């Protein structure tokens, strides 16, 4: 008799629990590097997410959105990210995990998302394999091969026959080098030299001299955005490589809006392929950049902020579709194949891989109204991640 009563009580409680979500806020746990060497990643993604909530309201599908940000500085230590994500799931009881500035953190949290059945929105980490690590991952940023393949085909089509590749000696560098070589040689180009420079390399003089003596048509560069890129580009100009007719090409994260000013005029003439530029011409981007400058007058909108903005948008649209239900299977089902016009242009979520499909633009770094900008002059439409084919 007593047992029966308890059972009824339990059932009642369970039903009440199941109904309760309709009124409760949706808790989103953001795992981002907010301090340390990659603090600018976290800051930009946070800007994007908050900007979406500020401009589009914070209640979707009848539920208010609540953000909890955890700093997984340095962002490259998977165990730190995993511990914080665990705290978010167990202590803060979040419904959705999001953020992830760098690949190691996304990799480490993926099994947790599977186990805890939480949707995981990757807003930056760009290694191709990230979305394969859990069936609950959706990515709204980009993948590295998605950006390094188009610059290779563009180069092959534009009279660049011999390329020297210089990449930083770490995972993303190897990926970029591999994809570039694959696409470029398949299109009939030759690689005349390849160097893997140490990640922390204070002086590029020897590499630059080697390039100058090899006389390629172009140099494909992939370095972590920051001091190394600045050192390389300044050296490139100073040593007269651009004057010698060597074209510098790279993926667009190198002359990202955050470091363009620090690169200064040495970035002029650089040709890159990327999915977002502040100078992208569309009404959506105009609205986005205007709102961004109003909210954060000291910073410049860049691709990471857009990754965060679109990630938040995806969450909002899914909540509207599911009426606020955050069950991981339903959430991912609703996200598959979703299409929208982002500040970067038209994007969609690949139903098969849950990865983003988007236009990749070929841009040249120029001075527009006294400000350095990556001006788009060509694009490949609806480009899927070639790393998963």
């Amino acid at each position, binding site marked *: 008799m007593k047992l029966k009563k308890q059972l009824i009580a339990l059932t009642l409680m369970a039903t009440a629990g199941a109904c309760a979500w309709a009124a409760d806020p949706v808790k989103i746990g953001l795992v981002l590097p907010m301090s340390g060497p990659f603090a600018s990643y976290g800051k930009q993604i946070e800007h994007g997410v908050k900007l979406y909530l500020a401009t589009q309201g914070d209640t979707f599908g009848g539920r208010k959105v609540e953000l909890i940000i955890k700093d997984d500085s340095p962002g490259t230590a998977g165990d730190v990210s995993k511990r914080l994500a665990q705290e978010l799931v167990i202590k803060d009881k979040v419904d959705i995990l999001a953020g992830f500035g760098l690949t190691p953190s996304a990799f480490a949290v993926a099994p947790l998302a599977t186990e805890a059945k939480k949707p995981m929105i990757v807003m930056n980490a760009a290694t191709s394999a990230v979305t394969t690590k859990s069936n609950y991952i959706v990515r709204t940023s980009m993948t590295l091969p998605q950006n390094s393949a188009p610059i290779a085909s563009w180069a092959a089509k534009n009279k660049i026959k011999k390329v020297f590749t210089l990449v930083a000696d770490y995972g993303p560098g190897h990926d970029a080098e591999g994809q570039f070589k694959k696409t470029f040689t398949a299109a009939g180009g030759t690689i005349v030299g390849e160097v*893997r420079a140490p990640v*922390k390399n*204070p002086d590029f003089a*020897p590499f630059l001299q080697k390039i100058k003596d090899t006389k390629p048509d172009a140099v494909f560069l992939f370095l972590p955005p920051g001091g190394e890129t600045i050192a390389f580009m300044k050296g490139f100009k100073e040593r007269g490589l651009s004057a010698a007719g060597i074209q510098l090409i790279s993926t667009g994260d190198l002359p990202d809006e955050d470091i363009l000013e*620090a690169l200064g005029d040495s970035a002029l003439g650089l040709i890159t392929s990327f999915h977002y530029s502040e100078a992208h011409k569309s009404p959506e981007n105009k609205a986005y950049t205007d709102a961004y400058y109003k909210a954060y007058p000291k910073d410049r909108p860049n691709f990471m902020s857009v990754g965060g903005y679109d990630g938040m948008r995806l969450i909002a649209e899914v909540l509207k579709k599911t009426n606020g239900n955050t069950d991981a299977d339903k959430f991912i089902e609703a996200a598959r194949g979703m299409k929208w016009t982002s500040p970067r242009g038209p994007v969609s979520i690949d139903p098969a891989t849950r990865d983003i499909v988007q236009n990749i633009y070929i841009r040249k770094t120029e001075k527009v109204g006294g400000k350095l900008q990556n001006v788009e002059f060509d694009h490949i439409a609806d480009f899927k991640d070639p790393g998963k084919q």
Partner: protein
Amino acid sequence: MTVVFDGVAYGLLLFLISVGLSVTLGLMNFVNLAHGAFAMLGGYVCVLLLDRFGVPFLAALPLVALASALVGVLLERTLYRRLYGASHLDQVLFSIGLVFVAMSTAHFFFGAQQQPLQLPEMLSGQFHLPGGLDVGVYRLFLIVIGLVLAFALQWMIAGTQFGAKLRASVDNPRAARGLGIDVDRVFVLTFALGSGLAGLGGALGVDMLGLDPGFALKYIVYFLIVVAVGGSGNIKGSLVASLILGVCDVAGKYYIPQVGAFVIYAVMVAMLIFRPQGLFGRTAAK
């Protein structure tokens, strides 16, 4: 030839960014891992002066050195002096803590992004000499400054009365006090000198190394290599060590890029095996 020139220039860059540490660690025997923080301070002051106040680069350099020296004195009076007698482990823990404080402070005031620094026209570019030698103007400038500083410092330590007092104060503070040397004052001045040089090195390095809050920690390995290989207690050792390391590193990266990154460490290991106390290190003074 260009490789040798670049190597020498890189060596002197190493020397410039580590010379402050040669003073604090090498001469004062204080394991000052916060050296990078002073260098970073110098970098930020330089960028501020150039950007915000429009001070010309060359005029900014002495101001930078002065500013870092003043901060050095302030910290020496309030914090560092308490740890002169402490064990090296305590000094390491203290100064590495200071680095983190400095990094967060820089982050708070300047943000995480890279700081722009535009050199004046006259210091950028490259000119060609007969014989296929390409000389970067800024690199030449670094070489000149590095050599001038090295000789001035060496002379100060070995040839002046202040240098003698300093050596006496470090080797045996009690006896030095007994001889009427104001050990406290000597230490403050030397520490100010070390921090000033760190700041100057930082400011000179910004163009080649970039500047963000991670600067304080990023190049610490290079500072330490130079001082370790050069041996403590003299500037000449640091200079020679920087030159050897610079030339080997650049040549290694040019001729065998696949393993180039390891050359600098291989050279360090080899040199330390043959001269464990450093190139010109004094064999245990105490």
